[in-house]
C-alpha cells in the first residue's frame, strides 16, 4: 500500500526509473545465483551416473586400476555380439518399414483425405498412452501365431513399428508442415503431374529433414527397447545385457556394452542435429 501512495510523486520520471532499475539489478543477481546453483546441481545429477558407468567400463581386475579388457571382451562374450547384430538389423528394417508405411499415407491424407488427418494422428499417438507392457500381453497370442511361420527375432519389427510410431509420426508431421504441400501439389498437378509424381518427386524431396529425424528416432528406440523383446523371449541387445547383469553384476562387459550403446545413440543424435542444421542452412 505504501508503494502505491508514493506513485503519484514518482510519475514524473527519474526516481521511479532508478528505483526500479536498482531492484532489477538485485533481482538479476539473485536470479543468476539461483540459475548457476540449479545448473550445477542438475548437471552433476545427470552426468555422475554416466561418468561412473564409463569409469566402471575401464576398471581393471583390481579396484581402482585401469584396463580396456571390458571393451575388448564385448566381441568375445558369449551371445553378446549376435544380439548386437540382430538389434542393428532390426533397427534398419524397422525404420525402413516405418517410413514406407507412414510417409505415403501421411502425404496422401494431407492432400486428398483431410478428414482422416485427426484419426491418423490419434492412432499414431496412441502407443504413447498404451504402455508397452500392456501391448505385449495382447501381442503374445499374435506372436504365437507368427512363430508358426517364422521364429526369427527380426519378427519383432512388427511390434517395433507400432512402438516407434508416435515419435516417427511427430517428426514426419513436422517435416510435412514445413512444406507448402497445397501450393506444390496444385502447381505440379496443373503442370500435368500424376499423384505418384506429386507425392514422391515433389513433396518427399522437400521433407527429407522430417524423414531423417523419423529414421533416427526409430533407430534409437529399437536400440533401447527391452520390454517387448524380453517378454516375447527374443534375445536382442537389451535382454542380453539384462541376462549378463543377472548372472553377474560385476561383469565389466555389462558396463562397456551399455556405454557403447549410449555412445552409438548419442552419435546418431549428433548426426541428426548436424544434418538438420545443414539442411536448414541450405534452404533459401
Amino acid at each position, binding site marked *: *500500500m505504501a508503494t*502505491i501512495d508514493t506513485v503519484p510523486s514518482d510519475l514524473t520520471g527519474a526516481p521511479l526509473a532508478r528505483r*526500479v532499475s536498482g531492484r532489477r539489478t538485485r*533481482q538479476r543477481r539473485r536470479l543468476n545465483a*539461483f*540459475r548457476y546453483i540449479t545448473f550445477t546441481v*542438475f548437471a552433476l*545429477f545427470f552426468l*555422475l*551416473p554416466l561418468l*561412473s*558407468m564409463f*569409469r*566402471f567400463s575401464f576398471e581393471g581386475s583390481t579396484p581402482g586400476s585401469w584396463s580396456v579388457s571390458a571393451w575388448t571382451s564385448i566381441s568375445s562374450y558369449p551371445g553378446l555380439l549376435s544380439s548386437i547384430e540382430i538389434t542393428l538389423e532390426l533397427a534398419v528394417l524397422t525404420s525402413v518399414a516405418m517410413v514406407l*508405411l*507412414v510417409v505415403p*499415407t501421411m502425404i*496422401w*491424407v494431407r*492432400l*486428398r*483425405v*483431410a478428414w*482422416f488427418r485427426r484419426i491418423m494422428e490419434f*492412432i*499414431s499417438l496412441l502407443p504413447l*498412452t*498404451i504402455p*508397452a*507392457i*500392456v*501391448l*505385449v*500381453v*495382447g501381442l*503374445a497370442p*499374435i506372436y504365437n501365431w507368427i512363430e508358426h511361420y517364422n521364429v526369427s527375432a527380426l519378427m519383432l519389427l512388427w*511390434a517395433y*513399428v507400432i512402438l516407434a*510410431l508416435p515419435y516417427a509420426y511427430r517428426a514426419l508431421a513436422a517435416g510435412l508442415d514445413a512444406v507448402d504441400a*497445397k501450393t506444390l*501439389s*496444385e502447381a505440379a*498437378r496443373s503442370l500435368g503431374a500424376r499423384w505418384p509424381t506429386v507425392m514422391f518427386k515433389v513433396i518427399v524431396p522437400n521433407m527429407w529433414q522430417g524423414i531423417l529425424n523419423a529414421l533416427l528416432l526409430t533407430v534409437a*528406440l529399437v536400440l*533401447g527397447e*527391452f*520390454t517387448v523383446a524380453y*517378454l516375447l523371449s527374443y534375445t536382442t541387445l*537389451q535382454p542380453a*545385457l539384462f541376462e549378463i*547383469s*543377472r548372472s553377474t*553384476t560385476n561383469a565389466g562387459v555389462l*558396463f562397456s556394452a*551399455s556405454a557403447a550403446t*549410449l555412445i552409438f*545413440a*548419442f552419435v546418431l*543424435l549428433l548426426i541428426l542435429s548436424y544434418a538438420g542444421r545443414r539442411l536448414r542452412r541450405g534452404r533459401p
Partner: protein
Amino acid sequence: MTAAATTEAAVRPARAGRRLPLAWVGTLPFLAYAGVFLLLPTGIVIWNAFKGNTNGWTLANIKALNTGPVRTAFTGSLELCVISSLIGAVAGALLAYAVASGDADGLIRRIYLAGSGVLAQFGGVTLAFAFLATIGPIGFLLHASWYSDFPWGIALIYCYFQIPLMVLVFLPAIDGLRVPWREATENLGGSTWQYWRYVGGPLLAPAFLGAALLLFANALSAFATIEAWEDQIAYVVPQSISTSLISEVGLANAHEGDALALGMIVLVVIVMSCYLLLQRRAGRWQR
C-alpha cells in the same frame, strides 16, 4: 483442412460425377497395420480379461485383482508413480525456470534442451546399470544403503528420466509467461512473492498439474528399469504382468495377466483424460 478442400476443388471438374470418391482407399494399408498390431492387441487384452479358464465369460479375473499380491503391486505402482512424478515435476519445473530465465538462444538453454530430449528417452536397463555403477553395492560415488529400498531407491533412478521430461513439457508454459505481466505486477507495487502467488502461480498451475500427470503415466508404464534394478520381487504392476506372462503354467487363472493389463489401461485412461482436460485449460492463455 482448407489445403485439401482447395486441392479437391481444383481437381474435381475433370472427373465430376464419373467416379465415387476413392481417395480414402489410400489410408487402408496404414489402418490395416495399426488395426492388427495396435488395436487388435488392445482388444485381445480387454476380451481375455473377461474370459474364463476354459470358456465362457467371467468376472473372476477382475475380482482376482482384489487379492493380496495384486493389491500390493497396485499400491506399489501408485506409491512409486506419485513420489517420482512429484519430485520430478518440482525439480523439473525449477530447472525449466532456470533454463527459461536465461538467454533464449544461449548455449546453456541449447545444451539442456538437447540433453533433456535425450535423457527423457533414456530409460531401460542401461539406466539401472548406470545407477548401479554410481550408488549401488559396487558404486563409485558411494554405496548407498537405500539403493535397493522400495520406493525411494528406484524413485531416484526414475527421476533421471522424469526431470528431463518435465523440462520438455513445462518449458513452453514458462516461456509463455510474458515479461509485461511481471512489470505490471512490479509497477503496481507487487513483490516477487506476490507475483508468483497471484499471477505466475495460478497461470502455471494447470500446465504444472498436467505435466505432473504425464510424468505419472510415464512412470506407470516404465518396466525395463525397475526389472533390471530388482527382478526377484514384483513391486509394481508391470512386474506382476511380466511374472504372469512368463510363468503362465503355474497360475490359478490363465488370464491374470490380461486382467492386470486391463487395470493398467483403466488407470492410464483416467490419468490421460485428466491430462488432456488440464492441457486444454492451460492452453487457454497460451497462444
